[in-house]
């Protein structure tokens, strides 16, 4: 509602008269002078002008309506014949008209609803009308409108009379109650009424503010059971068929909009109450309903509403939770009764803890972790929010119990571990890592007698460790979880398979394609028993696609993703995971495009991802912002550095305002900018930004924090570019020390730091140190990613280059022989430029005095280099010069080779 104007503002009536030109002279001048200074009045004037434009058309419409009312005269006459004098029309719907009428026998005003007779009403409408009267009459509650009378009209048609509520819609009244607690009390009384209906076996199915009027005493009154459905056994089924939607979209539940009347039950009313609660709390609708209809449907079935606290102050986390729980798309995760919803509202009103708490927090966490690698701090925040989480059932009861049990166990155990930190309880990343490790070490003994519980915890731990980048430790946990489930549950149990596929995905991430493929083959052996719509198909197909990407089988990956897409499209559109899966697939499409180095396609995919996340999560959601930044990265790859720069600049500007300068996303965007500046050769700017980011991170998080270390690393990389190798080396050393302390020598992050430091000290000529670091890095990558991972192989090459530069021919020869042998498999060979490696191998052999063998290799390498890099490349030219010096004209040889190949 609009706030009353300040004392100096003219009354609305005067402003309106001004707009109508009905004011003159000094009065008009005074008001005009005021409005020119007063923003509120200026706004009001604009509204009044818009109103004025509508009025002539409205009068026409009303005249046409009056013409129609004249056509209704016979109806009015027939109502008079049964004892009701029509006063005026109250509203008109598809099936009937509601009049305000005077009941002559009692001399009171009532509302009379008339079912139109004749061709306009069908048998189904009549049936519904009768049902409405029957069901309404069966209810007796002070908050439900009472039915007085029913009967036939002389001219055909039916009517019923009910009490006339002099009231206004719930949301309008709620908006006028300033105190949140008053609004909630009102809402709780509404719950009373609906609970009463449910107890009598009546589901309303069309709850919305217009059907809940608040009367003069402030009591909510529920009316219009026109779409209600009986639930009790013995009652006739409603005249609703599959595929048909009844209700009002803005308040309809996912099961209603997807046309599944068989799924409609009391929880459908719970959902509608959830929408109303959302409105009552925030004054807004949980989903945008002003776009095209199809979008609105999609929002209802797929979109995740932002917590109501986003829109209004005074709403705490518990109210958010209550509201979102009532709005859950998955009926099993909703409040299972109005009772439960009301109980939580009353609990909140009396400052007691609510039962819902964070809706299945652990479940959500796990999902989130699977979708995105969260930084450890974010993870900790989520973990800390989990205390007391209640997991709600899914699927069948036994499955649900199992799920609930395992989730709860895992949760409690981890929370215990996490909260055992001590009095400081400062969430520090390294502690999370330590805690996870401690939990991993303890889980065996803590649940020695209960392998299934143990598996549950190991599964969660595995995901957390994986998310933290501790791949091999994650692998250990998932492997153990899978084995325990396989041995104590069943090899083809849905849960077992899920863990198995997750493990395969982790191995894929590590570049260990062969064992990953084996696991997937094994999982698929049971697949013939899976239903077509079994969720495991999606997981399996997607994992196969990711594996294919890793192996460079990009066409296969594409086909697999298409199959996974088909699976999602054929699946249940109301499933709460649908939207997530859609996003995952788009994300994967972006990744695939990246592998193909098809940056245009990557741009398209990430553009779509941005669109989806905007739709589902809103602009401000971190996942949306992350998608935007990936999009920026894609266009950066396309060489549109300026565009990428402006995108990131915009992100920085927007996010700094909404999320704050220090938000991780702002930092991420600015880091991207640093990279762009570096690419553009704007090194002073890059350096300045990198220094600023480091200073900010250091001030905010302290010198040893993950983000500070990351910022330090970035500055070091920039300095390396500017040629300040010594400074770069000092910083990189700090980074390496911190990474090692944080995650251990064997982690991938530490290996990356070692590699970067090696590159810096290498440029300073500190070869011994560089060599040692490279060996560490290679060992780290080897352990975490595997010997065939791209990074492992490329780092090995760096060490090889170092050997060659230092003329350590024996070591170089051995290294390249091994490197070439390791990448001999065609799918790996295609991913690397092996010509340069072979050239180095040949040079090493020449250096060792095995000239003939060496030159032969260089010749071979030259052919590869021509193919891979072209004739103008410096290494190709170097190879050609070597061959010339060896007395061989490279072109002659190639020509001879070609001739030789074509002769018998």
């Amino acid at each position: 509602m609009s706030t009353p104007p300040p004392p100096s503002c003219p009354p609305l009536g005067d402003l309106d008269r001004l707009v109508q030109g009905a004011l003159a002279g000094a009065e008009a001048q005074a008001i005009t002078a005021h409005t020119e200074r007063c923003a509120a009045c200026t706004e009001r004037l604009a509204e009044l002008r818009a109103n004025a434009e509508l009025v002539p058309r409205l009068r026409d419409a009303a005249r046409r309506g009056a013409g129609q009312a004249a056509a209704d005269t016979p109806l009015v006459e027939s109502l008079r014949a049964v004892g009701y004098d029509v006063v005026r029309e109250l509203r008109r719907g598809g099936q009937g008209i509601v009049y305000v009428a005077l009941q002559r026998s009692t001399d009171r005003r009532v509302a009379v609803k008339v079912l139109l007779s004749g061709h306009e009403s069908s048998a189904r409408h009549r049936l519904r009308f009768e049902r409405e009267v029957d069901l309404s009459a069966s209810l007796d509650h002070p908050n439900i409108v009472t039915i007085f009378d029913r009967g036939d009209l002389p001219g055909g048609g039916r009517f019923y009379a009910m009490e006339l509520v002099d009231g206004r819609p719930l949301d309008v009244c709620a908006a006028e109650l300033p105190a949140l607690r008053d609004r909630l009390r009102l809402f709780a009384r509404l719950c009373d009424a609906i609970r009463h209906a449910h107890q009598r076996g009546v589901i309303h199915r069309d709850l919305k503010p217009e059907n809940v009027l608040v009367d003069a005493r402030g009591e909510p009154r529920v009316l219009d059971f026109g779409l209600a459905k009986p639930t009790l056994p013995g009652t006739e089924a409603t005249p609703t068929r599959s595929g048909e939607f009844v209700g009002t979209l803005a308040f309809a539940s996912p099961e209603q909009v997807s046309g599944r009347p068989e799924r409609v039950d009391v929880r459908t009313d719970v959902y509608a109450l959830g929408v109303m609660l959302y409105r009552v709390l925030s004054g807004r609708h949980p989903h945008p309903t002003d776009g095209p209809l199809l979008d609105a449907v999609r929002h209802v079935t797929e979109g995740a509403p932002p917590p109501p606290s986003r829109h209004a102050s005074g709403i705490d986390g518990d109210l958010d939770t209550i509201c979102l729980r009532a709005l859950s798309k998955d009926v099993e995760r909703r409040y299972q009764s109005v009772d439960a919803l009301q109980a939580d509202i009353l609990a909140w009103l009396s400052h007691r803890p609510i039962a819902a708490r964070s809706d299945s927090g652990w479940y959500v966490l796990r999902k989130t972790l699977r979708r995105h690698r969260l930084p450890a701090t974010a993870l900790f925040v989520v973990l800390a929010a989990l205390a007391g989480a209640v997991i709600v059932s899914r699927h069948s009861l036994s499955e649900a119990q199992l799920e609930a049990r395992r989730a709860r166990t895992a949760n409690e155990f981890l929370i215990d571990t996490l909260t055992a930190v001590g009095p400081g309880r400062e969430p520090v990343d390294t502690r999370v890592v330590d805690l996870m490790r401690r939990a991993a070490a303890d889980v065996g003994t803590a649940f020695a007698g209960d392998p299934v519980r143990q598996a549950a915890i190991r599964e969660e731990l595995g995901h957390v460790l994986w998310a933290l980048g501790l791949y091999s430790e994650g692998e250990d946990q998932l492997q153990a979880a899978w084995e325990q489930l396989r041995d104590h549950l069943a090899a083809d149990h849905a849960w077992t398979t899920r863990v198995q596929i997750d493990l395969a995905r982790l191995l894929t991430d590590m570049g260990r394609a062969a064992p990953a493929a084996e696991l997937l083959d094994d999982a698929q052996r049971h697949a013939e028993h899976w239903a077509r719509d079994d969720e495991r198909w999606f997981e399996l197909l997607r994992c196969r696609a990711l594996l294919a990407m890793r192996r460079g089988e990009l066409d296969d990956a594409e086909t697999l993703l298409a199959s996974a897409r088909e699976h999602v499209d054929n699946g249940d559109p109301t499933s709460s995971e649908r939207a997530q899966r859609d996003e995952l697939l788009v994300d994967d499409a972006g990744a695939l495009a990246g592998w193909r180095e098809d940056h245009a396609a990557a741009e398209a995919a990430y553009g779509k991802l941005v669109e989806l996340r905007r739709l589902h999560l809103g602009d401000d959601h971190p996942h949306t912002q992350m998608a935007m930044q990936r999009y920026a990265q894609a266009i950066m790859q396309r060489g549109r550095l300026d565009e990428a720069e402006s995108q990131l600049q915009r992100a920085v500007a927007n996010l700094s305002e909404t999320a704050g300068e220090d938000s991780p996303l702002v930092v991420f965007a600015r880091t991207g900018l640093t990279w762009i500046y570096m690419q553009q050769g704007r090194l002073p700017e890059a350096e300045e930004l990198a220094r600023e980011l480091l200073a900010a991170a250091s001030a905010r998080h302290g010198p040893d924090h993950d983000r500070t270390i990351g910022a330090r690393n970035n500055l070091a990389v920039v300095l390396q570019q500017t040629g300040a190798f010594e400074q770069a080396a000092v910083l990189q050393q700090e980074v390496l020390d911190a990474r090692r302390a944080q995650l251990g020598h064997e982690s991938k992050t530490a290996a990356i730091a070692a590699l970067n430091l090696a590159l810096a000290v290498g440029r300073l000529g500190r070869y011994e140190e560089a060599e040692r670091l490279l060996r560490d890095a290679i060992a780290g990558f080897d352990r975490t990613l595997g010997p065939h991972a791209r990074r492992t192989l490329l780092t090995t090459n760096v060490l090889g280059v170092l050997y060659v530069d230092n003329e350590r021919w024996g070591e170089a020869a051995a290294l390249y022989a091994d490197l070439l042998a390791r990448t001999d498999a065609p799918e790996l060979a295609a991913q690397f430029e092996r010509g340069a490696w072979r050239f180095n191998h040949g040079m090493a052999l020449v250096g060792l005095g095995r000239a003939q063998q060496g030159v032969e290799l260089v010749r071979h390498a030259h052919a590869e280099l021509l193919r891979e890099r072209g004739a103008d490349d410096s290494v190709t030219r170097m190879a050609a010069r070597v061959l010339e010096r060896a007395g061989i004209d490279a072109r002659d040889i190639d020509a001879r080779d070609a001739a030789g190949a074509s002769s018998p």
Partner: protein
Amino acid sequence: MNWITTTVLLDRLADADDAAWNDFLGRFREPVVRFAQRMGLPREDAEDVAQDALLGFVDTWRRGRYDRLRGRLSSWLFVLARQRVLDWRRRAARDRERSPPEAATPAPLHELPDDGAARHTWDTSWQEVVLESCLDRVRGEFRPQTMEAFEAFVLADRPAEDVARDLGMTSNAVFIAKHRVLKRLREMQADYESIA
């Protein structure tokens, strides 16, 4: 007109269903009839044209050729209605050639006005019907007194002071009632436009 359920209604049309057809007809017939009348057709023929156009739409829908993402329903209906009006004119012109002048049909134009003008006529008809249904709907959302003040002051164009005296309110309250109802009507109109 009932709000929101347009898409669902269309889905129901996929199986021939009398009730769905009646609903559909009830909702979208009126704008087509008005359009056709304004294009010069007599009421009876306008009703036939509307029936034809809607049948044509249902056919399009059942064949899956109507893509909700690409065009608004009202635009599709316009295209169909315009085509039917054009057909009717051609027939009428032929009939005129064959029959003596005094028996000619009352079509005032030989050619359809340009698309812009036809579109404008369509939009007018459509918006009228939308506004009428908004007016129907808004009645349920306000206190009876507010509505009575609105109807007397705005629709019946009675002086604010008279309305205030009759209803026992201040004349500024009458203006406030006017403002609130009109504001709500504008919102409803925007809502409706966005869903059909």
